[in-house]
Structures are given as C-alpha cells and as structure tokens.
C-alpha cells in the first residue's frame, strides 16, 4: 500500500486509498466479524470428529445431542456472519466508488481546455460510469477478503497439522505448486486486459466521433467507410477479449485441478495411515471435510487476486488518462476579495500551443479603468485567443497581463472570476430554468468568496429583472410566464388573474379585438378544438379530460343524442385522409407534423383504417380505431390544422350542442364540467389565455408587439408584472437550452455575466446572433451604463459598431498591428481603413 506522499493529486492515489478513505471504521468492524467467522467455520470440523469418535463409537446419546447442537449453532452463525460481511463489503464498495467518482469528476472539470480539445465526451462518460465500477467490488474486498481467507486457511491448516502432521504436510504440499503457476497466467491475463481497456477506449472515442459527425457521414453517404473503421476495431477487440478470457479461465481451471488433487492425497496416504493404525477413521473423515472446506477460502483468495489485478489495471488506465494538472490554482479564497478599478496592462504577451503554434505574438497595450476596446481583424488573427487569455481560460506562455498592477497568473481562479466576466460567441446554456442559468456565474463567484456574509449573496428579483431588461430578454421571459400554467390549487393567483381579466376587458379589449379570439357563448372559436367548442368548458375529472373524451361512452351517447356522432366520424375520416395524402411517406420530421391533426406515429394506423374503409363500413372498425377517428375530429382546430376546413353545417350543429351540453352534464353528475365564465379561472389553459378569456389568432406578426405592450401596461397597472416575471424565470430551457432561440441564448449569456457585476467584461463576438434591434440595445447599454465603470474588451466582426469604442485594436496573424482611437486609425489610412472601406 503506497500512501507515503503528502498530498498527491487524486489521479495518483492508490486503489487502496479509496478502500480506506472514510471507511476505516467499517473495515475494522468487518475484520472483527471475519475473525468470528473463521472460528465459526473451524468449529464444525472438530464437532464432526467428536460426533464420530466420542459419541457414535461410544454410543453416547447426550454427547451426540450436545455436539450436534454446537454444530448447528456454528454453521447458522457462520451463515449470518457471511451475510453481514457481504453487506459491509457492498457498503464499503459503493461508498468508495462514490467518493472516487465525485473526486475524479471534480478533478476532470478543472482540467485545462487543451485537454478537452482532444478528449471525447463519451470517453469521460465511460471512464466515470463503467471503468471505475470494477473498483467497487475491489474496495469492498480490499481488506476483508484476503484477511478472512488467509485466516480461514491458516485455521484449517493449523487444525489439520494438530490432527496429524504427516498427512497435513502431504495435502498442503499441493499449494506451493499453485503459487508457481497462477501468477504466471495472471501476468498474461493482465497484459491482455490492459490492451482491452486501451482498445475499448479507442473504440468509444471512435463511436463518439462518428455520432457527433453523423451529419457529415450521412451527407457524404460514407456509411460503409465509417462502418469499416468500426469493424476493424471490433475485430481487434474480439481477439483481445478472447485471449483475455482464455487466460482468466485458465487460471480458474488450473486452480480447480490442483484443489481436486487434495482428496486424492487424503485417500491414498490417509488410507494407508489408517490401515497402519497411525490414524483413526474419524480423523480421516475430518481430513476429507477440511480438504473440501479448504477449497472455498482458497477460491475466494484467487477471485480476490483476479479482481485486484483487473481493478488495478482498469483503475491505473483510467486515472492515468486524467493524470494532468489543472492550469490554474484552485485554492479557495480565504481573504476578502480586493476591489479592482479595472485597468488592464498587457505586455509582450505570447501564447504558443502545445504543438508549437504561435497564436499570440508579442502583444502589448494598456487600457484605463472603464475603457472600451474593440478588437477587429481577419479571422484566425488571434482575437478570440487574446480574449480567452485575459479571461484566464488558459495560461499565456510569456509576457504579462496585469489587472491594477496585479499579475493575472498570480490570481487564483476563484479570485479572477470575481472580476472578469466572459461572454462567448455561441454560449452554452445548461438544462434547467432561466433563473438557474441566470444565476450560474453569479452563484459560482459568490460561493467562491466565502468571506462574504450570507445575506449579501442573496439576489433579489428586482435586480434580475433589471438585468433581463438591460439585455432585452425581459419581454421573452414575460412571455414564458404568460404562457405558463398555474398550479390547480393556487387559488390566490387564480383570483388575481380574474381581476386582471376584468382590467383587461375595461382597458384593452377593443384595442386587441383584431388579434384575439375572445370566448363567447354564441361564437364558434376557430382557435379552439372541436371538443372545447362543444363543451365550452373544461373538466377537473380525469375521465372527462379532452384527450380521453373520445373513449368516454357517456360522452359518445351525448354526441349521438345531438346528432354529432356521425358527422364527427366523417370529419375524422376526412382528416385522416388529408394527412395521409400529404404526409404519408415523407419521414417523421417534427416540422412537417407541427400542424398536422394526425401525429407522426399514428399515420400508419390512418392508412390501415382508410384501406379498410374502402371495402367495409365504419362499424366494422375496431373500437380503438373508431375512438381514434373520433379523437382526430374532437382535436381538430381549424386555425392550426389548415389542411382541412370545418363544414359550416357542422359548425352550426356544434353550437347547438353547446347549448344542450350543461344540462346533459348535470344529468350525468354534478360539477363534472366547469363552463367558461368571465368570473372563473380556466385551469389547463395558460395565464395569458386566462387574462384574455380567449386565444390569440395566429398569422398576425404585428400583433405580437401590440399584445406585449398592452399586457405589460396592464400588468404594471395591476402591480403583477414581477409575479409573472417570476413565473417566466422558472421556464425550463431544455437540454443545452434547445427551447430558446439563438438570440435568447446569447442574451441570457450576457445577462448571467452582468448579474455578477464584473469589473472587466470580455465579449467574443457576443452579439453576433442578435438581430439589429437587440444588437443596438446592447450597444446602448455599453455606452450609457458601462463606459467609465466597466472595462470592456470585445472581439467584433461588424465594423459599423466599433466607432463607439474608446480604442480599437487590429490583429493579424497573432500580432497587434494597429492600436488607437477609431479616428486616429481611420486618419492614418492603414489596415482598419482597408477593413472598413476595402482595398483601394
């Protein structure tokens, strides 16, 4: 066990370190149990002998009962203890692996960006999740198994020697032979195992690469090419795995063979001794049993040996892969963060990559506190690299970067994140809510600054709203809030929204009449589906929810009674026919099915139904099919499912049915449905629909802005803006933020940096995904709010916005070729002039 180094990085820790870390107490308990179990295992042997020699031979009934009682107690205890050992082993193993995983993951996160450039995500996943799991088995075994079994073996061996030294000596002679053969085989198995681990890793990387590049593969049709690469690896892996298995089973077989020789020795030599009168028969029986019992601990020892070898090979390979030091010191802050003014001095800065590319070459410039610098130049000129160096994303090779006369490289990571905010060109948004993403950088910075009192780290809603407004994301968040649903038991919010609804009716109804279809008892609503139009209400009972209505026999009998059933079936068939006509055979592209009444996965069913209907009547369809057709009709919303129209005759019938519906529903059960009323909240519809008491009409782009303005104004009047914003901040952005647009993601990335109030803001084409209006908003924010307060370095590709920066830097091939104010550089008619006005 190597535990001599003071504090080696976790990748250099030995496998035993994890087995004992935080587990020492458990390991000791385990050892105690083990000593007991050894005793409990040897005891039956002695009883066996006494039962035969003392009781049976001497016809001693009392003795027989006594010895048998001790025998049964001993084996019961042994079983119970064995269970306890297994449990403890599992406990220790899982604990050890969890700590190992957590620590290793934390370590991986801090590794330099250069490391990740060459590492496939799949590799990290399989290392953490699969490769390390053998260590569980081992950690649980690490202490207990060798000790138990060695002790048991010694116990048996001692007992045998005590019984008859000659015979014992002869049987135990087998074992040294085993010690010679097995390690030799194991060495070969290890070698194969190492190759297997390495190759598996290569294959994983290969798979990960192919899957990430699936677009390229498909567009080039390079299926067989990729397939061949994979086949090649798979074949190699097969060969190595076969070899590995061969050696592993070879060890087992060799072992079994040697152990099988034991009884042979007992019979031939023991038998001889009995005949010679040097050994009693009882002892020979005990010898045979002991011989058999020796097998178990021995086998476990061999298993342990194999597990240890396998685990340590995998462990070394895994840890070795991540054996690299983080670029930056991650010492926690123990002194209060020192405020910075934000002045920046870069002197003779160079950055050379590991493979020798010089990305930055002797850059020098300085910026006063609060000055704004635009970095422009040809792509590949080093703009991003410069910004990333200042952002401490990697260490510069030579030169210096000083913040307020403090060298950046001497600042710990936790200190630098207090002062520096970085916004990338294609920011990464994490799964979670808007709020979680918004607080991402802020929380990281405050958690690091442990010296701050707790209250100061709390951030209030007002400040978040302010930041969202500054970056132009507030309207979007409001929209998320308005489109959300309230909890069914949230009476307070429901009441408030009904009051807001009244306010809306008084102040905005006429203004928005063109854009919203209001609920009205006498109108057919083209933005609502057929079911909603019939019910003009909703049900809290699950059996009567819209999507289950088509299965509901009561509801069907209602449709029958108002002569709607047949027309709705006809409509359902028509919808199925249209959908099949347009969408059959085009592949299940979400985009195509967005406005289809038939979901992609049920198109086949439609085709089958239509085929059947050609020859048979509707009533010959299975109940499921009938119900499906009815559900298509009930779900039909004319303004969305534009492929069909609603016959006006049917419209009239539906409106007539609506009048009869409340009476019928009362007859089925009281309070089954709640009709839409101006005075009650509609659960199952968004807050916005509830405020409108209606739905927005689609296809009116200008409506959006007017609606947004009106609703904002209304919510301010009603003092409810913040509450809705809070709802909106809980909007889940989806995996990697895929429910947000590119612009929204970028705005969110700017907002999350702003929230932590950094003195230095680095922007790497941070507004490139924004439309004109949003871009000017950020531009305005920079000139009015940040000038003089926050130092900005921005890599810019649009030349029309750089005039408002204090300084402009032009970069080419890693060098700073021009630096000065916009006017100066334009006047000198150099490269900047050329970039803007073109070559003369």
């Amino acid at each position: 066990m190597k535990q001599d180094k003071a504090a080696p990085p976790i990748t250099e820790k030995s496998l035993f370190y994890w087995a004992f870390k935080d587990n020492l107490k458990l390991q000791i308990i385990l050892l105690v149990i083990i000593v007991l179990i050894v005793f409990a295992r040897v005891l039956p042997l002695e009883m066996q002998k006494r039962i035969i020699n003392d009781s049976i031979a001497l016809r001693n009934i009392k003795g027989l009962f006594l010895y048998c009682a001790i025998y049964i107690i001993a084996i019961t205890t042994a079983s119970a203890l064995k269970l306890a050992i297994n449990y403890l082993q599992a406990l220790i193993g899982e604990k050890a692996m969890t700590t190992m995983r957590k620590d290793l993951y934390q370590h991986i996160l801090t590794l330099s960006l250069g490391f990740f450039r060459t590492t496939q995500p799949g590799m990290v996943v399989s290392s953490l999740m699969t490769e390390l799991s053998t260590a569980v088995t081992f950690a649980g075994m690490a202490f207990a198994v060798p000790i138990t079994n060695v002790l048991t073996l010694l116990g048996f061996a001692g007992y045998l020697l005590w019984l008859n030294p000659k015979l014992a000596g002869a049987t135990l002679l087998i074992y040294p032979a085993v010690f010679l053969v097995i390690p030799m085989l194991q060495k070969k198995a290890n070698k194969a195992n190492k190759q297997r681990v390495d190759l598996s890793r290569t294959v994983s990387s290969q798979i990960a690469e192919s899957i990430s590049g699936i677009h390229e593969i498909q567009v080039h049709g390079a299926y067989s090419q990729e397939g061949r690469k994979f086949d090649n690896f798979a074949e190699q892996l097969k060969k190595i795995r076969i070899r590995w298995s061969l050696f592993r089973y070879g060890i087992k077989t060799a072992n079994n063979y040697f152990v099988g020789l034991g009884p042979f020795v007992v019979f031939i030599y023991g038998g001889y001794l009995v005949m010679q009168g040097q050994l009693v028969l009882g002892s020979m029986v005990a010898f045979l049993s002991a011989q058999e019992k020796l097998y178990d601990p021995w086998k476990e020892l061999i298993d342990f040996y194999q597990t240890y070898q396998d685990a340590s090979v995998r462990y070394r390979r895994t840890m070795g892969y991540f054996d690299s030091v983080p670029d930056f010191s991650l010492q926690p802050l123990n002194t209060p963060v020192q405020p910075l003014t934000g002045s920046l001095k870069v002197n003779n800065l160079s950055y050379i990559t590991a493979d020798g590319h010089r990305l930055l070459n002797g850059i020098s410039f300085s910026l006063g506190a609060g000055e704004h610098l635009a970095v422009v130049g040809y792509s590949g000129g080093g703009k991003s690299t410069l910004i990333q160096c200042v952002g401490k994303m990697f260490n510069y090779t030579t030169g210096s970067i000083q913040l307020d006369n403090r060298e950046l490289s001497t600042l710990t990571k936790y200190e630098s994140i207090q002062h520096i905010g970085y916004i990338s060109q294609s920011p990464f948004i994490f799964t979670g809510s808007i709020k979680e993403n918004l607080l991402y950088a802020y929380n990281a910075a405050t958690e690091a600054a442990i010296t701050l009192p707790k209250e100061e780290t709390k951030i209030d809603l007002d400040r978040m709203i302010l930041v969202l407004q500054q970056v132009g994301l507030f309207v979007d968040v409001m929209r998320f809030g308005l489109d959300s649903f309230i909890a069914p038991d949230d009476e307070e919010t429901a009441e408030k929204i009904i009051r807001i609804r009244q306010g809306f009716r008084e102040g905005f109804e006429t203004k928005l009449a063109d854009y919203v279809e209001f609920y009205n008892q006498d109108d057919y609503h083209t933005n609502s589906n057929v079911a909603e139009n019939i019910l003009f209400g909703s049900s809290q009972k699950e059996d009567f929810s819209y999507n289950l209505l088509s299965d509901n026999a009561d509801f069907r009998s209602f449709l029958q009674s108002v002569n709607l059933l047949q027309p709705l079936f006809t409509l359902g068939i028509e919808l199925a026919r249209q959908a099949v006509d347009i969408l059959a055979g085009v592949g299940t592209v979400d985009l195509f099915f967005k406005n289809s009444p038939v979901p992609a996965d049920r198109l086949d069913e439609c085709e089958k139904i239509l085929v059947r209907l050609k020859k048979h009547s509707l009533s010959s369809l299975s109940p499921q099919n009938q119900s499906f057709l009815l559900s298509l009709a009930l779900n039909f919303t004319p303004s969305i499912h534009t492929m069909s129209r609603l016959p006006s005759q049917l419209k009239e019938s539906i409106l007539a049915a609506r009048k009869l519906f409340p009476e019928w529903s009362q007859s089925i059960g009281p309070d089954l449905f709640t009709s839409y009323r101006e005075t009650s909240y509609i659960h199952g519809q968004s807050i916005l629909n509830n405020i409108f008491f209606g739905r927005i009409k689609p296809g009116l782009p200008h409506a959006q802005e007017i609606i947004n303005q009106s609703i904002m104004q209304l919510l301010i009047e009603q003092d409810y803006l913040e509450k809705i914003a809070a709802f909106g901040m809980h909007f889940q952005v989806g995996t990697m933020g895929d429910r947000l647009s590119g612009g929204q993601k970028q705005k969110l990335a700017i907002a999350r940096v702003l929230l932590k109030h950094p003195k230095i803001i680095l922007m790497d084409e941070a507004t490139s995904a924004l439309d004109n209006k949003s871009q000017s908003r950020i531009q305005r924010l920079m000139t009015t709010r940040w000038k003089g307060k926050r130092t900005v370095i921005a890599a810019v590709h649009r030349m029309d916005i750089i005039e408002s920066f204090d300084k402009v830097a032009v970069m080419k091939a890693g060098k700073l070729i021009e630096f000065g104010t916009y006017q100066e550089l334009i006047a000198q008619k150099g490269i900047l002039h050329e970039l803007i006005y073109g070559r003369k």
Partner: protein
Amino acid sequence: MQQNLEFLKDVGLFSSFPDKAMKLLAFLAERTHLVTGDVLFEEGDDHGQAYLVLSGQLSLSKQKNGEKVIIQHYTKGDFLGSFSLLGAMPALFTLQASTETTVLTINRQQFSKILEQFPETTKLSLKALLNELNQWERKNIYEAGACCLSRTGATVL
C-alpha cells in the same frame, strides 16, 4: 390549403417540383396578414424566409443618408427571397407592407427539410434559380450595356 397550392404552383422556383412535394409545401406555408407599415425584414437581418404576395403590396427600401429610399414594389403573385431559403444571407434592404397585405411565408427550415425528403428537388430548384439568374444577368448586365459593365464585370458568375 388548396388555394395555397394553386398560388405556389405559379412560382418559378417550384414550378417543376413533384406533386407530393408541392402539397407538402402548400401545407407548411403560413399565411400572414400584415397591416400598413409592418416590417418583414430589416437591413442586416438574416430572416431566412421567402414571401409570396397573395394580396396588397410590399415595398423594398434602403436607408440612404438617413432617408428611406423605396426601391421596388411587389404585388399579387410576386415571390421574393428565394436565395434566403438556401442559406444564411443578411438582407441588403428593408421589406415593409405598404398597404394591408396577405403573404404566404416559407422559411429556410421548411424548405431544407423538403429538399431532404425529395432529393430530386435540389436539382430542380438549382435549375430554376440558374434560369432566374440568367434572365437577371441578361436584363441587368447584358442589356444595360457599357455603363455598368465596368462596375460589375462582364458576368456575375
């Protein structure tokens, strides 16, 4: 939808598309109602959409020295934005509704999915575009004569 289909069939870019693709296109196309002054795209936006005017009028303009200069009007049956269906292209002009207008909109995503589903349409649309380009070249360069040749070169492609 049937109406959309009739309108789209008259658009040069789609004229030789197979029926199935046309149906899908007509189904995906969205009708948008605009009031006077509504902006469809602004200079610099990558709007990624093509528009077919169904009724009313759109005007294309450019800011010049702070003033809006109208360049062209589009009316019923006009189709604009074919290039932006193919890939990212920031607009050089601003498009607005100059009266109450209805347009049929197709976006890049929809179009590219159709190209994916019906591989033969890629060739067909390329052919149609080439045809348009050729006509444009003939009209704007060949016939315009010497005045513009010095600026544009003899041919654009």
